């Protein structure tokens, strides 16, 4: 290869950073001819190689490369400080001395501050001989003398002398970090916080950094010290131990820990706690070991050997807590029950613990088991009011447990006759069963204990009014005024006064001057209600409750038919419905009263654009009184507007009149799809309502006598997660679904699977597998009926019969009939 090509190649290798190859090429060139350029390039390559070796801590190689660089370079030589540092790291003392002698004052004091700092540390520690090789007229040597003076003062316990010497060091001295370190060390005895603060000033590239870290470790205590000291080498640990005064046992502990890797295993910690219990404190060690048994149960024998036998109760308690820690409630329950058994065997004096454990177990149980455990706990701790209230809450939720509720309410009242919470429940129960005298009795007790209790006063008021209404209805007019007066005496406020006036007006109509009474009734109703719709509703209810003629009364009121309710007026109506529902609870009367205002109410829902929350409250209220017609109307409109699972729930609920057994297949699909949506949207209320309704549907459709199979093998219902129906029809809008559902419902009543097969065979050719497939997979029949319903309605839903058959993988080829027997 000619020289030019060689030169080009060498330059190319250099530019590409391939210095080794570039070196060979430049050497080849220089063998042929001399060139200062080539020399310079060659020197450059050697220098880069030297740095590369140094990065890999290959200092000997780095030194050789730098010396090669020097042979081909001109002074001043680059990175001479690096060369010196590599020499020091390779511990070539002879060469170090020679090299140090070649350092100039400029280089030592100005150009190479890092080297100067390292030399300073080495001279003070391992290589005092370096001092003589350095330029004696340098600032470095002057500062070194000051540092030696300071150190001597320190050794002589002359801290003032030391300080004064250190002050002579200028800010940019090579011994700057040394000064900080020494001051930090002095501060250790008076203020470890100052030590920490000072040490923070030593930079990361300082040769004093490691010493600083060791000193910093001395400021630590306890676990922080342990974790820090474990990172050190054995000689460093010994030094720190000596400085901070670790005793032999403490040092043994540190050494034991240093032999292990963090994080420490449970077994190691347990064993160390036992081994060093005198150091940790016997009580702390015992507490730790007992607690550690939860995660290291194998340590029980050693624990008992060290601290005495753990009794059966405690052993089971610890196991139960360990299981709970792992979310293993099943085994936890077992161990808690064993713990109870152990306590029972221990004899008297353990009743409270037994009761508490039973209540603790009860928390994780489903309702019936929970209540039995709570009841059992009362045998051991009969004075727990919360327990009684929990039992009452459970029995109060279901109509079928009314008798149990009454029984436990009586027990609660007996046990806590002066407790307002219990008395309040008693009042509510008496009101529900229309035992107004009893309700008043309990309410009066509450007022005796708490004269300001508004609830009790309201109950007394309502009870007197309710009794007055009954007296009016039964035409015992002479007794009505007394009830009204007793209600009036409570002085509850303006609205209640108007109610009093209303009662008097009704009495006047019933027993006195009819026209005067009518006028008074109308006057009060118009005062109580800002709008004719509410006035009409309240008037109707009151007339029915008191046995007075509704039509006569309503004639006195302004017409309500064309009125629309504002949001405030609708809120008033909801309150009235709730009030009369709670006071009287007669759904028939409420429905009749609502029927009088059905038209304006429906129009208002359509035209007034109520807030979603207000409509939801209305639906909840209509649900309470089971007025499904109005509920359907509201839910339909709300779903069209907001498209949320809660509205689908109310729609389906209203369409099925609150009877889950009447849910059709399409209803189920809609509820399931919206249950998923409710979960995604984190809509807990909708989720709960839909789940409960579907649960009730499943309960209503469980084959009688085969429940035990369901328990053994899981639900008898088809696996809803394999949702062919969803796949086929999930794209359809709710409204379309609904229409097809109604049609499909009607068709199913007159189309058997066999007939459907006949119809389909006429269209698509004979398919002998179809009937069998339908028997195996009921969803197939449902899906085909949906398509049929859509076709009959003239709706293009994008799904044909063949799509359904394809989805369910029904082919035409005849198969052997899979009779199992």
């Amino acid at each position, binding site marked *: 290869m000619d020289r030019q090509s060689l030169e080009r190649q060498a330059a190319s290798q250099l530019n590409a950073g391939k210095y080794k190859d570039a070196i060979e090429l430049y050497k080849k060139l220089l063998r042929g001819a001399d060139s200062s350029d080539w020399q310079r390039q060659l020197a450059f390559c050697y220098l880069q190689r030297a740095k590369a070796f140094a990065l890999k801590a290959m200092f000997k190689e780095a030194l050789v490369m730098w010396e090669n660089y020097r042979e081909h370079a001109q002074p001043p030589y680059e990175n001479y400080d690096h060369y010196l540092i590599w020499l020091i790291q390779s511990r070539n003392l002879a060469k170090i001395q020679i090299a140090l002698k070649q350092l100039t004052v400029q280089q030592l004091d100005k150009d190479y501050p890092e080297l100067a700092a390292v030399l300073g540390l080495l001279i003070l520690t391992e290589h005092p001989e370096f001092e003589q090789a350095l330029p004696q007229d340098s600032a470095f040597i002057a500062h070194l003398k000051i540092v030696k003076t300071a150190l001597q003062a320190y050794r002589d316990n002359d801290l003032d002398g030391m300080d004064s010497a250190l002050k002579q060091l200028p800010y940019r001295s090579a011994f700057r970090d040394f000064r900080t370190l020494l001051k930090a060390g002095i501060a250790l005895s008076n203020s470890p916080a100052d030590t920490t603060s000072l040490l923070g000033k030593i930079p990361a590239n300082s040769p004093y950094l*490691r010493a600083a870290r060791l000193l910093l470790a001395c400021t630590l205590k306890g676990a922080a010290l342990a974790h820090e000291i474990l990172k050190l080498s054995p000689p460093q640990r010994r*030094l720190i131990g000596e400085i901070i005064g670790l005793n032999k046992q403490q040092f043994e502990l540190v050494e034991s820990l240093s032999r292990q890797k963090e994080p420490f295993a*449970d077994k190691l910690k347990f064993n160390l*706690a036992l081994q060093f219990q005198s150091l940790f404190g016997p009580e702390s060690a015992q*507490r730790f070991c007992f607690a550690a048994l939860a995660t290291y149960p194998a340590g029980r024998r050693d624990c008992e050997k060290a601290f005495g036998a753990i009794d059966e109760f405690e052993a089971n308690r610890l196991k139960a807590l360990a299981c709970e820690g792992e979310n293993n409630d099943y085994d936890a329950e077992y161990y808690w029950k064993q713990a109870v058994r152990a306590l029972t065997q221990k004899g008297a004096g353990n009743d409270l613990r037994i009761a508490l454990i039973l209540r603790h177990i009860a928390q994780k149980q489903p309702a019936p088991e929970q209540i039995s455990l709570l009841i059992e706990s009362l045998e051991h701790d009969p004075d727990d009011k919360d327990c009684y209230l929990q039992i009452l809450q459970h029995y109060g939720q279901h109509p079928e447990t009314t008798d149990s509720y009454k029984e436990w309410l009586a027990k609660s009242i007996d046990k806590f006759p002066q407790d307002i919470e219990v008395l309040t429940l008693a009042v509510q129960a008496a009101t529900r069963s229309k035992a107004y005298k009893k309700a008043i009795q309990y309410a009066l007790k509450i007022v005796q204990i708490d004269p300001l209790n508004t609830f009790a006063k309201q109950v007394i008021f309502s009870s007197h009014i309710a009794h007055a209404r009954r007296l009016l209805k039964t035409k015992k007019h002479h007794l009505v005024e007394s009830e009204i007066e007793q209600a009036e005496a409570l002085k509850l406020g303006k609205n209640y006064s108007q109610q009093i006036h209303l009662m008097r007006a009704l009495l006047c109509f019933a027993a006195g001057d009819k026209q005067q009474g009518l006028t008074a009734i109308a006057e009060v109703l118009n005062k109580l209600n800002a709008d004719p719709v509410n006035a009409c509703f309240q008037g109707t209810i009151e007339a029915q409750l008191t046995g007075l003629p509704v039509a006569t009364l309503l004639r006195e009121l302004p017409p309500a038919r064309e009125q629309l309710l504002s949001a405030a007026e609708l809120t008033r109506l909801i309150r009235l419905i709730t009030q009369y529902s709670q006071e009287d609870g007669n759904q028939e009367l409420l429905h009749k009263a609502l029927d009088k205002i059905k038209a304006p109410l429906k129009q208002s829902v359509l035209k007034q654009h109520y807030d979603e929350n207000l409509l939801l409250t209305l639906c909840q209220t209509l649900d309470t009184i089971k007025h499904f017609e109005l509920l359907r109307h509201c839910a339909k409109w709300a779903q069209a507007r907001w498209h949320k699972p809660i509205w689908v729930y109310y729609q389906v609920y209203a369409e099925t009149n609150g009877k889950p057994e009447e849910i059709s297949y399409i209803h189920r699909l809609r509820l399931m799809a919206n249950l998923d949506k409710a979960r995604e949207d984190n809509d807990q209320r909708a989720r709960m309502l839909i789940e409960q309704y579907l649960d009730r549907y499943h309960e209503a459709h469980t084959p009688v006598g085969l429940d035990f199979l369901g328990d053994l093998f899981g639900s008898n219902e088809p696996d809803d997660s394999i949702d062919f129906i969803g796949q086929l029809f999930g794209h359809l809008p709710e409204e379309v679904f609904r229409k097809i559902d109604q049609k499909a419902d009607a068709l199913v009543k007159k189309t058997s699977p066999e007939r459907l097969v006949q119809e389909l065979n006429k269209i698509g050719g004979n398919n002998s597998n179809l009937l069998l497939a339908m028997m195996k997979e009921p969803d197939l029949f449902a899906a085909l009926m949906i398509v049929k319903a859509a076709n009959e309605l003239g709706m293009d839903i994008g799904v044909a019969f063949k799509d359904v058959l394809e989805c369910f993988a029904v082919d035409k080829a005849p198969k052997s009939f899979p009779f199992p027997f």
Partner: protein
Amino acid sequence: MKTPYEILGVAADAGDAEIKLAYLQKVKDSPPDRDPEKFQTLHSAYESIKDNKSRVSHALFHVPASDFDALLDEALDTMQTLRLEPEQFDKLLRAGIDD
């Protein structure tokens, strides 16, 4: 992690009155508007041992955390006043070089 007794600074056999007094005194120093987090800690501690039933319940259902660091805190609590001797400072400088 401290026990409710340690948080309130009462003995393990303290009664209702003593516990309540300790709680009120602590709350005086750390009222909710000044130190809400500390107040919550004190309040939770008080609620868990304020009467006999709570204390029995706490003893039954609470396992003190097996806190090894807490043990180390006790074992390596170097209480003595430190003083760095000159020879130790020398060793420190050398130990900084060794590795």
